[in-house]
């Protein structure tokens, strides 16, 4: 075994080494899945006693079974070594050997049971194979024979593994031993034995003392738990087990330093380190020292999962939470202990005991720990399948985190570190902001009930530290249950105002977005809109990190839904249209990966993207969003399409137009199935002015049931549809009628007379409709001022000419840097003439008037994920309508500058508003 070379600690104790591999094997099976524990146990017992024997008697007699097992293990070891040097030829040989051995073993064991060792080997091979294939460069460098072996191995393994699929997944699913054997095997083969120790609980102290004196006693322990400690550990035990009172601060400190020094080095088991440190916390001599060690425990716990993609094991996470609470208890108990991560600590500072009066500084950073805790929680939700029970179980842990966060925040506020408190507050906000009141109430209830579960947790903790009695006892001081105000709004207000007051730019921006989102959920559109406009977030969002951009997109989507529920169609459309422009809405909201036909993503990009995903419970329902967006588009576009050809403006929503074109191209139209089909069917009905059918089709959508005030929204929708149907009808057929009576229209569209009158009047005023009322007879009289096609074209030409001139002027200005002198305010004038000039000007002015806010307010940024982020879709809406914007300059300018609030630093103002609101 080549690895022996590395194990310097063990080199003295030759005899024990012999048993190593055995122990490993037996350990494996001890922790194997419950399904076959029974069998394995008997097997294990034998093994254990054997190994003990071998300790005393040397290895002379061995049962055949034993020998087979050992053979297998050594093969496994060979494979492992071969993987180190990427020697596939060797691996193939070993694999074949392993298979033969398996036959023998199963014959001897006379059962169909497959030894764990074998499964382990399979897993190892599979992983290594995958790794090798992922690493293309290494593959290229391989010699031809090696590559050939690799390929044949792949085939074989594939075939072979099929039989053991279940066992392999079982094996993989077992997190504890998977974790250690996998991670450690990869880098440090000699660690396997240390790793084995990890799972062993430290026995109670009498046991331990005996242990120190007399090795042979081990056999007496019935082999329930096979205990084989490395020399190192034993020394430690000896040192600490004598008598708690004899242990000095220096001893603990030295040991602590040793362990810390080993961190990250080859040959250090991560889980083991956690255990060792946890043990040390119990013997720590002063509270400060205990705290110091606790901090190390926590960081060691975070170290357990080295990869960015995976998450910390749930059990570990919970233990970590418990440790955090312990830390807080300590800090509350001894207020003179200061946690700091900036100053270099005095070596001996933690020696100062309870009676020390002055401040004791301990290195650590609570906020960083808390944030890490949060992101681990987030990651674990990302990785869990949302349709399983696990996910719900995991979600139940949320109050656990809330309580830690709350306590940390309280503590930070007490010591006056408001900046950090703001960071913690943001974390809390991010757990609450997306919850409607019902969900929030449920969470509160859960937190109330959670005592039972926490009991479990404590039990676990107790079990874990079944060591010597704690030297420094810390009573539970901080509350173990989170407290929640009645409404989530209250909670948000408190937290958000704290962040606004003390947070840094990014924290504030994120808190603001969460605030907007939350207001939007609670149907407070004006408040949310004002917050958004006054914070100027949409101007600077593209400069922020991607997570914040996603949050921004989410807030916009929610704002759009909110506007829709409130019946503000234009506003809703303004919010949503940009999300749908790129067709990557999933990506923009981080709710799943969208495939692009033309653009392959690299694995790194995909990985990055996967890491950004929102956990399922935070998703915004995409169907509802799409339905909302498309319906808004229908209501805006259909009357637009009905107006005579030369009057027609550019389509407001190109996405919708494209979809419509596609659906019109279909030869046969089937019954609607998805959201899009429904909306298209509704569009066809609306184009004919058939409001009832249009509404029925839309009301059939399933997604409405997601709305709290479904009936209200549908009523609103019905009215809107009627109104737009009327407008469409009038625009389409006005040329065919000389006059239409008010009563007839009222009955046709089932609208109240006053509303109808005002609608028609508005159209007349805005010169969308060339008509006027004849009051005595109560009817609309249409004037046939039909423009010919030539006229229409002329208008277009005039428009284009002025655009041309304008761009010339702009070019001149750009090249000289000065303004063109002697010219009238051209934009303003242009607008004047436009207004005086007829339908064109009118129309667009109307457009600006009705759209102004939406356009200028929201033409913010919807970034994309990945590489697409930078491209963004900067003011897609605004820029496509550039000419209009220029003409409507004055009007638009006003709206735009509304955000301009207080020059320079508008954020402050809106913060004020935020607090007020």
């Amino acid at each position, binding site marked *: 075994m080549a690895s022996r070379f590395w194990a310097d600690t063990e080199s003295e104790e030759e005899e024990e080494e012999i048993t190593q591999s055995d122990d490993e094997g037996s350990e494996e099976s001890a922790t194997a899945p419950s399904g076959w524990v029974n069998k394995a146990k008997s097997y294990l017992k034998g093994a254990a006693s054997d190994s003990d024997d071998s300790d005393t008697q040397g290895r002379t007699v061995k049962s055949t079974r034993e020998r087979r097992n050992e053979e297998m293990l050594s093969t496994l070891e060979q494979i492992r070594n071969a993987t180190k040097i990427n020697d596939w030829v060797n691996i193939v040989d070993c694999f074949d050997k392993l298979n033969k051995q398996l036959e023998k073993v199963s014959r001897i064991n006379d059962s169909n049971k497959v030894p764990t060792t074998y499964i382990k080997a399979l897993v190892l091979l599979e992983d290594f194979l995958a790794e090798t294939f992922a690493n293309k460069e290494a593959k290229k460098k391989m010699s031809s024979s090696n590559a050939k072996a690799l390929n044949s191995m792949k085939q074989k393994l594939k075939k072979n593994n099929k039989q053991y699929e279940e066992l392999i997944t079982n094996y993989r699913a077992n997190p504890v031993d998977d974790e250690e054997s996998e991670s450690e095997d990869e880098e440090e083969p000699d660690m396997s034995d240390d790793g084995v120790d990890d799972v062993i609980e430290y026995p109670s102290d009498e046991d331990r003392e005996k242990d120190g004196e007399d090795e042979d006693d081990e056999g007496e322990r019935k082999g329930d738990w096979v205990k084989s400690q490395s020399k190192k550990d034993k020394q430690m035990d000896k040192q600490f087990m004598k008598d708690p009172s004899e242990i000095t601060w220096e001893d603990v400190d030295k040991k602590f330093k040793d362990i810390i020094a080993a961190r990250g080095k080859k040959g250090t088991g991560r889980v083991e380190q956690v255990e060792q440190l946890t043990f040390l916390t119990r013997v720590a001599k002063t509270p400060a020292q205990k705290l110091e060690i606790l901090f190390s425990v926590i960081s060691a716990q975070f170290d357990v999962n080295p990869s960015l993609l995976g998450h910390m094991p749930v059990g570990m996470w919970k233990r970590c939470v418990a440790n955090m609470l312990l830390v807080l208890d300590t800090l509350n108990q001894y207020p003179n202990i200061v946690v700091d991560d900036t100053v270099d600590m005095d070596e001996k500072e933690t020696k100062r005991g309870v009676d020390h009066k002055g401040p004791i500084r301990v290195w650590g950073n609570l906020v960083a720990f808390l944030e890490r805790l949060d992101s681990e929680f987030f990651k674990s939700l990302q990785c869990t399948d949302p349709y399983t029970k696990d996910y719900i179980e995991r979600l139940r842990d949320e109050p656990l985190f809330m309580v830690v966060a709350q306590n940390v925040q309280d503590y930070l506020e007490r010591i006056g570190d408001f900046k950090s408190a703001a960071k913690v507050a943001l974390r809390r906000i991010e757990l609450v902001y997306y919850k409607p009141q019902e969900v929030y109430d449920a969470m509160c209830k859960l937190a109330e009930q959670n005592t039972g579960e926490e009991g479990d947790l404590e039990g676990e903790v107790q079990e874990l530290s079944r060591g010597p009695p704690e030297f420094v006892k810390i009573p539970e001081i901080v509350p173990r249950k989170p407290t929640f105000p009645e409404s989530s709004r209250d909670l948000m207000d408190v937290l958000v105002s704290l962040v606004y007051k003390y947070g840094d730019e990014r924290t504030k921006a994120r808190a603001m977005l969460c605030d907007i989102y939350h207001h939007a959920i609670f149907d407070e559109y004006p408040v949310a809109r004002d917050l958004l406009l006054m914070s100027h977030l949409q101007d600077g969002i593209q400069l922020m990190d991607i997570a914040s951009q996603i949050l921004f997109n989410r807030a916009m989507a929610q704002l759009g839904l909110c506007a829709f529920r409130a019946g503000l169609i234009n506003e809703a459309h303004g919010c949503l249209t940009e999300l749908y422009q790129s067709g990557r809405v999933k990506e923009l909201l981080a709710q799943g990966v969208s495939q692009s036909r033309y653009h392959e993503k690299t694995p790194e990009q995909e990985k990055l993207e996967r890491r950004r995903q929102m956990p399922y419970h935070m998703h915004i329902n995409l169907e509802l969003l799409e339905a909302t967006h498309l319906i808004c588009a229908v209501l805006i576009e259909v009357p637009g399409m009905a107006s005579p050809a030369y009057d027609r403006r550019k389509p407001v929503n190109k996405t919708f137009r494209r979809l419509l074109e596609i659906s019109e191209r279909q030869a046969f139209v089937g019954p609607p199935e998805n959201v899009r089909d429904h909306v298209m069917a509704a569009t066809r009905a609306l184009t004919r002015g058939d409001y009832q059918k249009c509404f029925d089709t839309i009301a059939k959508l399933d997604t409405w049931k997601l709305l709290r005030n479904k009936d209200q929204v549908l009523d609103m929708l019905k009215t809107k549809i009627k109104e737009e149907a009327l407008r469409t009808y009038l625009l389409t057929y006005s040329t065919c009628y000389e006059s239409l009576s008010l009563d007839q229209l009222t009955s046709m569209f089932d609208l109240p007379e006053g509303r109808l009158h005002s609608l028609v009047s508005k159209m007349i005023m805005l010169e969308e409709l060339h008509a006027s009322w*004849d009051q005595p007879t109560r009817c609309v009289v249409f004037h046939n001022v039909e423009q010919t096609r030539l006229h229409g074209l002329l208008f277009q030409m005039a428009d284009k000419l002025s655009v041309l*001139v304008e761009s010339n002027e702009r070019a001149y200005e750009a090249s000289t840097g000065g303004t063109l002198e002697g010219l009238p305010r051209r934009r303003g004038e242009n607008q004047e003439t436009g207004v005086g000039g007829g339908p064109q000007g009118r129309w667009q002015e109307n457009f600006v008037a009705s759209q102004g806010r939406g356009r200028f307010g929201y033409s913010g940024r919807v970034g994309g994920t990945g590489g697409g982020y930078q491209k963004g879709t900067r003011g897609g809406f605004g820029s496509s309508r550039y000419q209009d914007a220029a003409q409507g300059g004055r009007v638009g300018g006003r709206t735009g500058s509304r955000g301009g609030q207080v020059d320079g630093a508008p954020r402050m103002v809106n913060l004020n508003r935020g607090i007020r609101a």
Partner: protein
Amino acid sequence: MASTHDLTWKVAPHLDRHLVFPLLEFLQERQLYNDEEILKAKIELLSETNMVDYAMDIHKSLYHTDQVPQEMIDRRVEVVARLKSLEESAAPLISFLQNAALVQELRPDKQYNIQMLNERYQIGADQIEALYQYAKFQFECGNYSGAADYLYQYRALCTNPERSLSALWGKLAAEVLMQNWDIALEELNRLKEIIDSKNFASPLTQLQNRIWLMHWSLFIFFNHENGRNGIIDLFFHDRYLNAIQTNAHHLLRYLATAVVVNKRRRNVLKDLIKVIQQEQYCYKDPITEFLECLYVNYDFEGAQTKLCECEQVILNDPFLGKRVEEGNFVTVPLRDEFLENARLFIFETYCRIHQCIDISTLAEKMNMSYDEAERFIVNLVRSSKLDAKIDSVSGTLVMSTNHINVHEQIIESLKNLNMRTYMLAKNIVEPAQAAAQASAAAR
């Protein structure tokens, strides 16, 4: 419920204590609230000022006694004592300033003045500070003209910009209370300049200052003859409009009224309506609703009812409902103007969307009798503001529809292109020619 639309409680926090007095006086006159309540409010208001005698009077009339609470008496003693001490400390400077000959010596240069005062008259920074305090005290006592004078002089000597600003506020308040509208307007503009140019520590303070300024300006604008333009200019200024939208929505009422009564500023109507629509969720009153009915919903009946409410609102508003006595009549000029213009608005809009209107309905819509309406229309037609004819037999008004000729439209829209292109060409060619000439000359 005449007091429903009363804004005093919203306006008052943005005003100086002394400025609230006229408002309360007005409310008392209009009998919107209980006399007692108002008197109590007045005492409350006076408690922080030095006008103790006045407070005592009010107290007496409120409780119908001759007894005055001890605090008031104590306060009076205290005030008098403080007056004495301030008078003393400011005496040297005041005596200097009262001597016209000496004042001649002052020059526009502040530094020089301070030095000169210091050297020749032993008047240092302390005395100047005392002047400020004294002026403030005078103001608190209700001696506005004295305060205004002192503050004016103080500003000439003051070097601290903060102090100078607050002196200016004080001056403005004093002028407003003395009803010197012209001077007040000057001060207002000066103050506006300072607020806009100054770098405030936090934008919030700046915002607050703007809001104060707008509130204080209400006194001036609705009394000064050119105030109607002034208020539109000031309030429509981007930053001020933003301030209104952020924190002082109720000012929209005054802006709306000013726009309605101002015939020459129709062009801002559209902007105003947009603002009103945006802020609709947090502020509405009959005046804004009237505009909304008329220009957003084209709901003439709604506009009609709102118009009636508007009248009440105007009458009960301290700023808008100013009365003028002409002989035996008491009129509220603003109300009359408002109603007249509002009627015109309704009429115009109505005519635009109709080709034939029954005059009796029209009369009803405009709150007029048939004959009045007919006269009104005839006047409009005669002054060629309205292109229509009255069909007297059927009692209808017939509009002559006239659509702008397409050719005219196109020519209109292209008219200025020529000019613009010409200018562009000229701008490009001229520098080139100049350069050519220069090089020729050099040769």
